[in-house]
């Protein structure tokens, strides 16, 4: 099944098909009470054929070319955050990016002591893992509460990606737990993210 040649303009509430014939993709939703797929955004209707190895042979219908709202952190998404406060059992951070997109609104995250690293979680010293101003790559664990999302850095590729030394220079990672100031040569403790090869 080929993708539609001419995109059809749709607005929210317009019928895109039956759930027996198509799957709801981005910008569409399936109403269970009448088994119909409707548009939820304004844009152009596109039909994407199913993957060759997929067991579900229904094509996916989606609405593209619309104005999108700013990205929102969701459980499982990787975010870039700036550490704002470090306490004995947790650190607070302001989420700046969700995946490759920068957020429009301020979202706050909390990195708890048990979520800093995967091993020896009871021996983690928060003050030797993060400092205010550090830029960290973290995984969103859950929605947390109204105040913050729960973040985790318990993977090799997660942790501090950029940090400033006391001298004001951007430090370079020397090991998974240390970063060094290029000006003074001073080594500082951090939970360093493994650089992408």
């Amino acid at each position, binding site marked *: 099944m080929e993708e539609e040649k001419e995109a059809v303009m749709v607005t929210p509430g317009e019928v895109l098909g039956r759930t027996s014939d198509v799957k709801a993709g981005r910008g569409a939703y399936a109403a269970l009470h009448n088994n119909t797929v409707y548009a939820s*955004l304004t844009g152009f209707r596109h039909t994407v054929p199913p993957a060759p190895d997929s067991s579900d042979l229904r094509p996916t219908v989606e609405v593209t070319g619309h104005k999108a709202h700013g990205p929102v952190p969701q459980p499982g998404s990787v975010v870039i955050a700036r550490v704002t406060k470090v306490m004995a059992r947790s650190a607070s951070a302001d989420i700046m990016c969700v995946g490759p997109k920068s957020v429009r609104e301020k979202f706050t995250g909390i990195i708890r002591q048990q979520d800093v690293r995967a091993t020896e979680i009871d021996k983690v010293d928060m003050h030797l893992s993060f400092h205010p101003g550090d830029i960290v790559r973290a995984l969103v664990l859950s929605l947390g509460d109204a105040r913050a999302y729960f973040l985790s850095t318990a993977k090799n590729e997660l942790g501090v990606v950029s940090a400033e030394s006391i001298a004001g220079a951007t430090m370079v990672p020397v090991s998974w737990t240390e970063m060094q100031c290029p000006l003074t040569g001073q080594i500082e403790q951090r939970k360093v993210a493994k650089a992408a090869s």
Partner: protein
Amino acid sequence: METDRPDGRTPNQLRPLAYSCSILHRAHGSASWAQGETKVLAAVYGPKAGTKKNENPEKASIEVIWKPKTGQIGKMEKEYEMILKRTLESICIRTIYPNTTTSVIVQVVHDDGALLPCAINAACAALVDAGIPLKHLAVAICCSVTDSGCIILDPTKDEEERSLQVGSEPMENGIMTSVTQGAMSVNDYLHCLERGRAACASLSEFVRKNIGTKSTSEPSKAG
């Protein structure tokens, strides 16, 4: 039954409609909606982090702030906020981003009757402009029963004041919200619904045509 209206309209005739979107650059979505001399500006901010007050781990929250043209917010404005909040909550798909809040600010520019329907239309258009996922569009209309028992659509401020009964029905494949002021018979109410439904069909066509062309002719606001 025909009636003479001060502006020369027939009982079923709506005032000229005007709509424009993306007029505020700092808002995530915005729209202005005018019906005759009644004009409302709506701005949408969000989805943003939920507040303790609106905390809901299963659904997103809609927050409506009504700004009157002059003076402080009163009882009437609080009621409008509540009606608007409930109406918008029923058209938004709130399960996508739980524990977030979307703020809708409604600024009254000028009130010459049928203010609440105008605000609903503006808010709905602003949500579309912000890219908030909606189940469907909502359109609103105002019906008024005159002293002589004639039903008129889209009344002006003078007509609203002269007729005691006013009904406002936003509807899309059925009624979502119905607000009545004053006393009216069941028959009058049903006649209002009939007239309103017919007017909403043409209003819905106008909304879809304009929202469609204006939303896609502008660059994406994706973050």
